[in-house]
């Protein structure tokens, strides 16, 4: 019985069911809009929107800094150390080895509004938002030893992908005022549960070659695929405003914007690492982990998010924060 309830209440169903209902309602709404009953506004309206959101999921974005810092420390800083100690003559770097952080996302959704009075409406809807960065990175390091042939190390990272998603049902309250027959403005507040997911994937192909005058040897190549994902439930609230103008008798276009607070404080998921024939998998709660790398050329400490072995001491909270300003363009159909 419990499992039945859980299944029924699962996040995807909570999105899919209202969406299907609204799709069924849409033809009627369009028909009503086109038939047009002059001078009479519909009590029900269906909003469909899409837009752009500025977000900064800082905890998951830390992984980009971490990967970049580790790479610089284990290559650039290491080679500087070798050069400073006369262990190599010189070194250089070609290519771009830095990933990009998630800074924006694309929300879209649908909403059914019911006009309670001339200035008040309530709504139910569902929204979905996805943001991600996928890149192909390639960086080649060349070091020239004192009395031996050059070492070429190539890191080909493709894909390097970071993705966040948020979705969930919402209810809202809308206060509006009409300015004549052509323009209306409103303020709204919507809220509801948030189901959010995040994922990280990198496939790193490493090649170490020794380049002589007449030959290139590749003594070692490797491929490492690291994937971690997570999901969790939080809350979503949005406060914003909207301007709309009618374009047909029952169809309005609108522009709305606002600030959405969307936060998930507990995220868990699976991870896997594939190295050659070896696959390692795990499951765990996402935390930010402090890691100290101690090498012959120095010591560095970083924080980074992961769901791998996060039961240890020294881990901090991880929050999947999809909050941010957003702007949307939509169409509203009266029926």
């Amino acid at each position: 019985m419990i499992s039945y309830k859980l299944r029924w209440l699962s996040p995807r169903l909570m999105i899919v069911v209202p969406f299907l209902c609204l799709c069924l309602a849409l033809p009627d709404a369009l028909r009503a809009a086109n038939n047009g009953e002059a001078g009479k506004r519909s009590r029900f309206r269906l909003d469909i929107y899409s837009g752009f959101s500025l977000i900064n999921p800082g905890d998951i974005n830390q992984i980009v800094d971490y990967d970049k810092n580790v790479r610089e420390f284990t290559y650039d800083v290491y080679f500087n150390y070798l050069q400073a100690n006369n262990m190599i003559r010189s070194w250089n770097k070609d290519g771009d080895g830095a990933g990009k952080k998630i800074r924006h996302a694309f929300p879209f959704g649908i909403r059914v509004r019911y006009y309670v009075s001339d200035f008040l409406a309530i709504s139910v809807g569902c929204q979905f938002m996805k943001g991600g960065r996928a890149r192909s990175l390639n960086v080649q390091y060349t070091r020239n030893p004192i009395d031996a042939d050059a070492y070429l190390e190539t890191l080909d990272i493709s894909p390097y992908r970071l993705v966040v998603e948020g979705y969930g049902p919402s209810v809202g309250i809308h206060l509006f005022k009409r300015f004549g027959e052509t323009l209306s403005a409103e303020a709204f507040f919507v809220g509801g549960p948030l189901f959010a997911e995040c994922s990280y994937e990198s496939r790193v192909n490493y090649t170490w070659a020794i380049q002589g005058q007449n030959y290139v040897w590749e003594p070692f190549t490797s491929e490492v695929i690291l994937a971690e994902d997570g999901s969790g439930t939080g809350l979503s609230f949005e406060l914003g405003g909207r301007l709309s103008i009618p374009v047909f008798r029952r169809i309005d276009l609108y522009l709305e914007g606002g600030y959405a607070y969307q936060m998930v404080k507990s995220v868990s998921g699976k991870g896997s690492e594939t190295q050659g024939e070896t696959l390692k998998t795990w499951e765990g709660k996402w935390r930010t982990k402090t890691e100290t790398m101690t090498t012959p050329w120095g010591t560095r400490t970083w924080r980074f998010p992961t769901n791998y072995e996060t039961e240890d001491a020294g881990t901090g909270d991880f929050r999947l924060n999809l909050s941010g300003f957003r702007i949307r363009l939509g169409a509203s159909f009266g029926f």
Partner: protein
Amino acid sequence: MKHCGSVRWSLFFVCLILFSFSYGGWAQSLPNEAGYMSLEPVSFYFHFGSYLNRLSLKSSEARIWYSFQAADQNGPETPLFVFFNGGPGSATSCGLMSMGTGRYTLDNRIESGGGTSYIANPYSWTRLGHLLYIDARQTGFSYNLTGSVQDELKRFREFNAQNFNSFFDGADFIRILLRFLAAHPSLQNHPVVIVGESYGGVRATAMLYLLLNYADFGNGRETFQDPALVDEIQAHLNAVFPLYSGDVVPPEVIARQFGHQVLIQPALTYDYQEQEEYDLLRRPDSPLYQIGQDAGIPYDPEQYPDPLAYVSDVAGRDLYIYTKPRGWLNGFFGNAGVQLRFIDNLSQVTGIDVTTIPELYASSRAAAYRVIETSYPVSAEIPGVSPATRALFLTPAVLEAPNVRNEPGDMESVFGRLELWDRYFIGTNYYANYAFHIFNVARARGYDIHSWEPRYGRMFLKNVAHIETFITNATLDLVVYSAALRPALARHVDILDSAEQTADGEEARPGKIILTYRPSAFSDLPGLTERTIRFPIYDKSCHAVSLTQPQELFTDVTDWLRQNGLGNR
């Protein structure tokens, strides 16, 4: 009278039974053994503290050659000596096993470069205990297995850090040793004496450090992580020290079994040893001036900045024994390698009929490989290797001696013809050597696990806190220059207050190094203040002391073991 007779017989049988109980249980002799032990592919990794940014490697399957010679007398405290040579990449079979330690030794006609047969050794260490000789991965008779073995690039990539690095090499030897002990329950809790020569000093250091601090090689504390090895060590310790079963066994307890090492001209903290050696050899009291005088080419440090290149290339002397011509010692290794490829010789040395070893037959070696290039050995220009170093390896010791192929009684005639990339025996596999030193991705990526790193000196000094140590001081050896050892150890100023060498003592060949530790040297050893290493002088010896002064070495080791409560004599 008849009654008296039966009483006498009864008394005789009672005495016999009592004798059997008091002695026979231990005195039962063990048979000699030789053959292969399999090592499965092992996943391990190196890290700097970051699991997700580690270097993960997986070794290849290996068949490791071993030869066990049972002690002349077996008792509950009879030690098991574990022998290995160095290189890295050099075989034990044509080294310590053939030179003055086993029941049979190569007929070393020293001045004529060696005989052609094996003879009984009057200084056999079987008088002291059981002997276990192990050929390291891809050396001697040991060989690796892999898929697509005919692919030269595949074979090239096999010679890299996943199969060759000093930690994993030490782990290989621990696996073989513990599996041998597990397969011989009557020996499982016997004391073990590690005997390493040359690079074998690093191997002994790695082995003992891995054993004494085993938990740290599975819990992320050490750079090298080999969880399967930790499990295997724990299983052994559970069996030998049941009071600690399942718990991490402290090093002082582990040292009750693995508490002794005999190091013959060892590399221990080789970078420091080499720096100190070069400094000593350039001084006015250096033996190089005498060498120059004898050779008629005076030594001048300004003119010859590399003293070893001067000795070898200019004066034409053997770096392993500077009173002999270049190549002298490797001539013995090479000769031993040639002789061991004859079935009768190998059977005599090992004490078993080697035709009963299935893994020697060509038919069982379809996936085996020993070399990259099928024309091995080649004088390939290997990057990063000095001509002097290369010359060390381009000696008869590494050659697949063509004169023994297809001769009656040699391995090919008995076991069958091998694929071009396989070999029955390789004295020094310098593909393996280069894999430790050059074609080593762990080293390329900055992991300080190369055998010359000072970390092995630190590990050695920590081991010595628990391990009784005997080191030879062969004064004619310039490859591991004994005079440089004390100052090299003293350079670990974060661990030692001083390292003093003394010739005091009543021994026939006295000599000790006294290490005074700093109070804060190791946080887990707060009471550690001073340790003494036995360091006897062998003034006629080359690098291989058991070749040139076998009697003296045997006597000194015997006395040293007795002082430490070990040994049969």
